[in-house]
Structure formats: structure tokens, C-alpha cells
């Protein structure tokens, strides 16, 4: 009953005048002394003149335990015991209230301390923007607040441990931390191991969840006593604060990297757009239009026109296997290879040009596990001869002015498949009113919501029925029709068109 004794001492000091009045009353009754004793020692004593014969003693008893006594000298025990006992009982009650008040006050102070500590924890974690620093702060502060020697905190990514921070040193394997986490998750409550774990005296583990999905956890070990409710509650309050902060940081870093990635992709997309000609050369006897829409921000389709000083034209439509950024990078290389070959070689035979481009790109295609389908054409205005080579590319549609229509099928495999090109030179007489539509398979392989493919027949029919349109009008119509067929279904592949129409 240390608290009660301390309370008695405090009371005598703080309410000295009350006890003095009490002593004076005893003096009036004829007492020569009034003494308060606690824990066997004198706390306070008042002496008055007179005959000190006779002593009355009444015990001070709080919650069944005697902590001291009141003593009065100079009076007859028979006559005054009842009165002293009444004083003692009154003092007992005062002591009890004092003890309770003291406990309430210390609890309040402790709560205040904990709130302050939590506030400081939140504040200190707010400074950090990466999960490592937050977990390290969490370990250190949680150990301090919960009076534990050791702590660890772990972070999960798609169910697997991503980060394990331990304080002050490592005392667990990642697998053990995972095992604790699994156990706590299985029971859906804090894991309390008061008999210890892996060399610790005792251990507490709390999973940290977002929307009931686990994404982190806090472990505390070596509490000076066993883990009991107040500590567990405090630890839970800590992980609630820490969890919210951790969640914010993770979301922030994910958003940041997404934003960075998106802006880089947008840059790539605008660069790629500039790689494709926006203006078309003016070639005698040809109406030219071309356009490309990638399925994602960037794509692997490309086209290019290279006009020569003698009025002739090289053009190419190609499709790199795969989609997105890898295809886009290869597309940029392929475009350059075609451009250089067209511009700097004196070859006018598309098959020989194709062969040279294949040699240029074969190594890269092999290293990157890609291939490129390409349709390479050469138009000579004086003879109206359109020659071409086709390396695995489709669909290429040739519609005569009279409506006779055919595909220019590939004869050799796509570029990058074999070290030597097998594509041969073909030629047609490209008359006024004739139409060439060199598309990529994003057109023929457009799917509707039912999963049916647009297909070659529809494409053929559409070109045939609209051969009187200009190159641009026909291109617009083809895009419109394919989009209408898809009816909002996601574009699954890049889509590119080069349309040539024979004019006067």
C-alpha cells in the first residue's frame, strides 16, 4: 500500500491546517499530544502542556490494510477511543480518495503523453517520403512508446514481402517475419507470443491493412513484462497512424512514377508522330494520303515517302511485331534504314532495296526477337510503272479503275526472319483511276464486341465500291467503317494506311 502511505504523507502536507484544527480539538479535550504515524514512522506530531498519562491509538486502514495510526496522549482510552476511531475512519476515506485521484491523474497524464507521442510519431513520419524511412521510424518509435527492446516492420507487395526493417539490429529472417504475418492474418487479430519467439522474451505482431488487404506489419519484442491489453491497444493506435502515412507514401510514389512514365510516353508519342510524314510529296500522276493511329500511345507501324529529283517516288508501309514502346523503338530504326537505303543507294529495284534493309535490320531483329513486315514500292511517273517488293506484309489492295481488285500478296517472309530476303520484284501499270491501299493488319484484324474479325473480304468490298473517292476520302471512309464495326471495342493493334490513287 505504498500509494496509500504516500497519499497520507501528501495529505498531511497539503492540508496541514485541517490536521492542525483536528489536533487543536484534541487539545481542547485535554490531550497533551496528537500524532500521525505512517509506515511505522512519525509524520506529524503536536504537543501541548499537561499530564501525558494515558494513550489512545486508532489504526489507519485503507482497503483492509493498516498503513499507520493516530495517537493521542494524556487522555483515557475508555472515554476517547470511539472519537479517535471516528477521526481515523474519516482520514481513511480521505486517503482513499487521494489515492484514486492520484491514479486518475496519472492515467490522464499517461494518456496525454501517449497522444503527444503519437502526434510526434505522425509528425516525424510525415517528413519521410519513402517507405524505408517510415518503417525505420515506426520501428524505433513504436519500440520506445511500448517499452520494447526490439521491433521490426515489413512491407508487402502483391502478397510477398518487399521490405523488412528491424530495430535495433536484425533478429528475424524474412521467412520468419512472413510466418508471423501469416499467423496473425489467419486469426485476424494481433498475434501475442508471451512465451517468446526465436530467442525473444515475448513478441507482439500486428498486421497493417488497407481495406482489409494486408500491405504491411509491425512486430514488437522484449516488452519488460508480458504483452497485455494496454500495450496492445497502444500498438494498435500506432499502426493506425503509421498505416495511413505509409499508404499515402506508397500511393504518392506510385503516382509519381506513373506520372513520370506517362509524360515520357507522351514525349515518345510526339516524337513518333514527327517521324511519320505529315505532308506528302507531290508526284505527277499520284494522289497520295497516309495516316497512322497506334493502339497505345506509341506503336510499331510506320510509313514513309521519299521523292527523288527525277520525280520518282519510294514509299514504304511497315509493321513491327509486338506493340507499345519496344515496337516503337524498332519502328524508328526501321524507318531510318528504309530512308537511308532509298535516299543513298542508286537502286531502283524494290526487291534489292528490301534485301539491303533486311541485312541492316537482321541482327537487331534477332537480338530483340522481333520482325518487321514491310511493303516497299517504287513509282516512276514517266512510265506509270509501280514496282514493289512485299516482305510478309498484308493487306495490300490493288483496285483497277474498272473495279478488278486483288491483293498484292507477300512472297518473302517478314524482314529479320531470314538472313537473306526472299521477296522479289513485282510490277503493275498504275493507271489513272487505279487505287493502291497499303494497310497494316490492324485494319483487317479489327474485332467487334462479339469477337468477330473485320476480315479481308469486307475491306476488299469497301475499297471496290468506293474507288471513285480521292485518296483522303477513301482513307477517312476506311477508318470510319472499321471504327463503326468495332463499335467502341478497344483497338487492339496499330492501324496504318497509305493510299495512292492514279490521277491525270
Amino acid at each position, binding site marked *: 500500500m505504498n500509494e496509500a502511505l504516500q497519499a497520507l504523507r501528501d495529505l498531511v502536507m497539503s492540508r496541514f491546517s485541517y490536521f492542525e484544527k483536528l489536533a487543536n480539538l484534541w487539545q481542547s479535550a485535554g490531550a497533551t499530544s496528537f500524532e500521525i504515524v505512517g509506515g511505522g514512522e512519525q509524520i506529524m506530531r503536536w504537543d501541548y502542556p499537561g499530564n501525558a498519562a494515558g494513550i489512545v491509538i486508532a489504526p489507519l486502514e485503507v482497503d483492509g490494510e493498516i498503513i499507520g495510526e493516530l495517537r493521542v496522549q494524556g487522555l483515557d482510552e475508555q472515554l476517547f477511543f470511539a472519537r479517535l476511531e471516528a477521526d481515523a475512519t474519516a482520514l481513511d476515506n480521505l486517503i482513499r480518495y487521494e489515492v484514486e485521484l492520484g491514479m486518475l491523474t496519472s492515467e490522464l497524464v499517461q494518456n496525454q503523453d501517449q497522444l503527444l507521442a503519437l502526434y510526434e510519431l505522425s509528425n516525424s513520419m510525415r517528413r519521410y517520403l519513402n517507405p524505408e524511412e517510415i518503417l525505420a521510424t515506426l520501428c524505433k518509435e513504436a519500440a520506445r512508446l511500448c517499452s520494447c527492446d526490439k521491433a521490426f516492420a515489413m512491407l508487402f507487395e502483391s502478397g510477398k514481402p518487399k521490405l523488412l526493417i528491424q530495430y535495433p539490429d536484425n533478429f528475424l529472417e524474412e521467412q520468419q517475419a512472413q510466418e508471423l504475418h501469416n499467423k496473425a492474418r489467419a486469426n485476424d487479430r494481433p498475434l501475442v507470443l508471451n512465451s517468446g519467439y526465436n530467442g525473444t522474451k515475448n513478441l507482439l505482431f500486428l498486421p497493417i491493412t488497407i481495406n482489409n488487404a494486408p500491405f504491411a506489419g509491425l512486430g514488437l519484442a522484449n516488452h519488460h513484462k508480458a504483452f497485455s491489453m494496454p500495450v496492445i491497444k497502444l500498438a494498435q493506435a500506432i499502426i493506425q497512424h503509421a498505416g495511413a502515412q505509409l499508404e499515402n507514401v506508397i500511393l504518392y510514389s506510385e503516382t509519381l512514377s506513373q506520372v513520370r512514365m506517362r509524360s515520357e510516353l507522351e514525349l515518345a508519342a510526339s516524337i513518333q508522330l514527327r517521324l511519320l510524314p505529315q505532308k506528302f510529296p507531290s508526284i505527277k500522276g499520284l494522289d497520295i494520303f497516309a495516316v497512322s493511329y497506334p493502339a497505345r500511345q506509341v506503336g510499331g507501324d510506320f510509313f514513309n515517302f521519299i521523292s527523288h529529283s527525277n520525280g520518282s517516288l519510294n514509299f514504304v508501309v511497315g509493321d513491327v*511485331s509486338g506493340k507499345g514502346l519496344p515496337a516503337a523503338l524498332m519502328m524508328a530504326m526501321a524507318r531510318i534504314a528504309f530512308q537511308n537505303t532509298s535516299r543513298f543507294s542508286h537502286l531502283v529495284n524494290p526487291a534489292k532495296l528490301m534485301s539491303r534493309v533486311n541485312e541492316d535490320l537482321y541482327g537487331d531483329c534477332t537480338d530483340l*526477337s522481333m520482325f518487321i513486315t514491310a511493303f516497299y514500292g517504287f513509282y516512276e511517273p514517266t512510265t506509270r510503272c509501280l514496282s514493289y517488293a512485299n516482305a*510478309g506484309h*498484308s493487306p495490300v489492295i490493288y483496285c483497277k479503275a474498272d473495279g478488278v481488285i486483288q491483293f498484292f500478296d507477300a512472297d518473302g517472309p517478314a524482314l529479320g*526472319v531470314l538472313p537473306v530476303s526472299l521477296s522479289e520484284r513485282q510490277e503493275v501499270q498504275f493507271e489513272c483511276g487505279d487505287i493502291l491501299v497499303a494497310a497494316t493488319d490492324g485494319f483487317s484484324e479489327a474485332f467487334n464486341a462479339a469477337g468477330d474479325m473485320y476480315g479481308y473480304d469486307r475491306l476488299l468490298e469497301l475499297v471496290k465500291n468506293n474507288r471513285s473517292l480521292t485518296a483522303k476520302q477513301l482513307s477517312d471512309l476506311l477508318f470510319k467503317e472499321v471504327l463503326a464495326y468495332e463499335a467502341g471495342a478497344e483497338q487492339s493493334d496499330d492501324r496504318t494506311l497509305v493510299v495512292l490513287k492514279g490521277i491525270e
Partner: protein
Amino acid sequence: MEMVSRVSGNISILELKGRFDAYELKPVQEWFENNTSVSNPKLVINLAGVHFLDSSALASLVQGMKRSRDKNGDLHLCNLQQSVRIIFELTKINRAIDIFPSELEAVKAFNE
């Protein structure tokens, strides 16, 4: 997509089932890596169960062919469904990789 790997004599056979696209490449590429680490690798890919193949998948088969030829071996394809056969014909990759109607013929061609 499902993958079943078998060995018949000195020939490694891979059976694929389902949709073979960009998202399914990794296990197939690993199979090629493992099976072209020997010299003179003889690979047969049975595509009987494959109803769709995208350009990335096609590129991975071409890669398998190149790897095996680098080691003086080869890669044969067999049992192509119509929809898959068309893709090989359009890209003319059927001129680069030998395609057989049945697994038996694809295997036999190695032993001739």
C-alpha cells in the same frame, strides 16, 4: 495458354494449347533457351491446340528457329489450325520455318 513438354529420342516436343500472345511468351522463351543450350537441337512445336497467335508469339517462334539453327539444329511446326496457318502464310514465315501436317511427319523429317 497451356504448355506440355515431351522428349522423343533426341527431339524435344512442345505442345501449346489456347491463345498464344504477348502475355504468354516467357515460358515459351525459357523452353527455347533450355532446349537450345545443347548442340544440334531438334525442336518440334505442336500447335494443334492454338487457335490464336499474335505477332509477338510469331516472333518468339522465329527466335526459337534462329536459336536452334545457330546450334546446327532446327525447329519444325506441326498441326496448325486454319486461323494460325493463315497468319504464317500472310507473313510468309512459312517460307522460313518448316511446317508439317502432323507431329509424326515433323519428327520424321528430322530423321531423314
